[in-house]
């Protein structure tokens, strides 16, 4: 039995996320760790560089809270739900302060992570070529992307993007064991490559399971325990996002956030209610049930659509 890495979000964020760090955030609309995101905001982390192919409200909340100086991403928005107002205020008006963004494409960020996870210095891609993303860089300058010639076919040019290896990553999965072996199903999002590329990872999970449960279906593991430094139990830890097999997305809540965050005051009020004003994830859930009722809460719970079993025998 290896040493348990289980701790609270509060402990994990205090211990492992320092001001100024480059932080990889895992997920793609699905299974975003709000448990960790909200703790970062409560602990008022500063000058973070946050990285993710596509960011949603979790980035918006960290930006509004002043945690973020720099963004490595291709997308900060909430799909058909609408724009993210803190992001726009920061980019357009410098509220609460000016932030910088290195604009890539989704695949380009994935290529950077893939390179980082495999110890490859850079990857040449066709995406971004000829676009204005190649003209502009924020703080990375020449290091953002470079047009290079294919050494095997001198007529062809590609965009080289450098490996991305954040100081720390965090993400949310369905289950992990105490050593940090992480299993996920449904939409993997930028994982497994993003989290493998991070130097260390904090995982929040719906359930902590025994090592034997992990070993029963080892192909489901997308990140091995040795990369993980903290395992945070966080049921409903991705709310208002969904987690396959556990709960659906809470559309009303997301619309509410986007509506209320139109003004800095409205945003502050929302955050006072749902982040600053609650102690931890349990407090958040209790408040949710107190506010919207048990019925609405239980309605989010996933139906049973079983995968059925396969045989690992030999």
């Amino acid at each position, binding site marked *: 039995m290896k040493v348990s890495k289980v701790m609270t979000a509060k402990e994990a964020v205090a211990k492992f996320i320092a001001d100024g760090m480059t932080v990889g955030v895992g997920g793609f609309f*699905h299974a975003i760790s709000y448990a960790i995101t909200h703790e970062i905001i409560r602990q008022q982390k500063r000058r973070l560089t946050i990285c993710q192919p596509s960011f949603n409200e979790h980035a918006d909340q960290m930006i509004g809270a002043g945690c973020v100086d720099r963004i490595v991403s291709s997308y900060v928005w909430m799909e058909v739900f609408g*724009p993210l107002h803190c992001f726009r205020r920061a980019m357009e008006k410098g509220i609460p302060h000016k932030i910088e963004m290195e604009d890539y494409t*989704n*695949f380009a960020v*994935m290529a950077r992570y*893939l390179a980082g996870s495999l110890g490859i210095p850079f990857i040449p891609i066709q*995406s971004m070529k000829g676009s204005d993303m190649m003209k502009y860089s924020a703080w990375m300058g020449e290091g953002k992307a470079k047009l290079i010639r294919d050494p095997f076919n001198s007529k062809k040019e590609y965009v080289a993007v450098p490996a991305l290896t954040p100081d720390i990553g965090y993400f949310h999965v369905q289950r992990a064991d105490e050593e940090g072996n992480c299993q996920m*199903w449904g939409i993997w999002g930028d994982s497994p490559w993003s989290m493998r590329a991070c130097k260390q990872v904090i995982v929040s999970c719906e359930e902590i399971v025994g090592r034997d449960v992990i070993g029963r279906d080892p192909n489901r593991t997308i990140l091995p325990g040795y990369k993980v430094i903290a395992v945070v139990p966080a049921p409903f830890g991705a709310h208002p996002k969904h987690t396959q097999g556990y709960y*659906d997305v809470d559309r009303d809540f997301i619309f509410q956030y986007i509506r209320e965050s139109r003004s800095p005051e409205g945003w502050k009020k929302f955050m006072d209610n749902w982040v600053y004003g609650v102690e931890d994830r349990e407090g958040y859930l209790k408040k949710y049930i107190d506010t919207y009722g048990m019925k609405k809460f239980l309605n989010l719970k996933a139906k049973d659509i079983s995968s059925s079993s396969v045989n690992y025998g030999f």
Partner: protein
Amino acid sequence: MALKYNDFTLQELMAVAAARELKDGEKVIIGTGLPLLGAFLAQKTHAPNMVAIYESGAIDCKPLVTPFSVADSVLAPGSAMQGGLMEGLGIVHAGDLDVGFLGGAQIDRYGNLNTHVIGDYRNPQVRFAGSGGSNDIGAGCRRTIVMMLHQKQRFPEKVDFVTTPGYFRGGKERDKMGFSGGGPSVVVSTLGILRFHPKTKEMYLASYHPGVTIEQIKDNTGWDLVVAKDVKETERPDPELIRILREELDPTGVFLKKK
């Protein structure tokens, strides 16, 4: 057929027009909203072997409920394969896919798309989402279908920022880049259907939607829009397609707002 499906909204017309652009057996990467409805409509009618793909890594989805997001949980169960972004966009970058759907804040004369900023990139008047997978899809898919709100400021002579190149400044400029994808083949706008001249790659008006005049479209376009010699009214949707859209694909009116 009940008479109630003889009418149609602009959105329904656009979804049907998008569906017509897809051929049977094609591999299509789709987003949410109208592209999704168009693609599923095609699959339910003339293109049963279409393969629906999401950048979230869901391949050949057969969702029981219309997805609200490209990463909706309803996409996974029943799909032929569920991976992540690497699986969804890797096959786009590899040139495996036939069609991608795009949209944006601006499109210009040569089909270049902007989803980044209005104004100066460094000091934007309005900042939008960024590329997401758009540039990847534009570079990788054999052709793209663009769906746009047709307004003058959204159809400028030149976009403020090239997020997803169309044909650059026309002619052979795109060919020189050596993308695996061929560029936009059609723009389905809120006013009409626009295509690209095979040589000059300039956008031209192919058809105007019912109730819309050519003049109106030219007024809402930021350059002197060429009109096809054989320009005609956009084909009206078959009532059966409207029925499928309303009753089967979006029964709760999430995407097709109830009139």
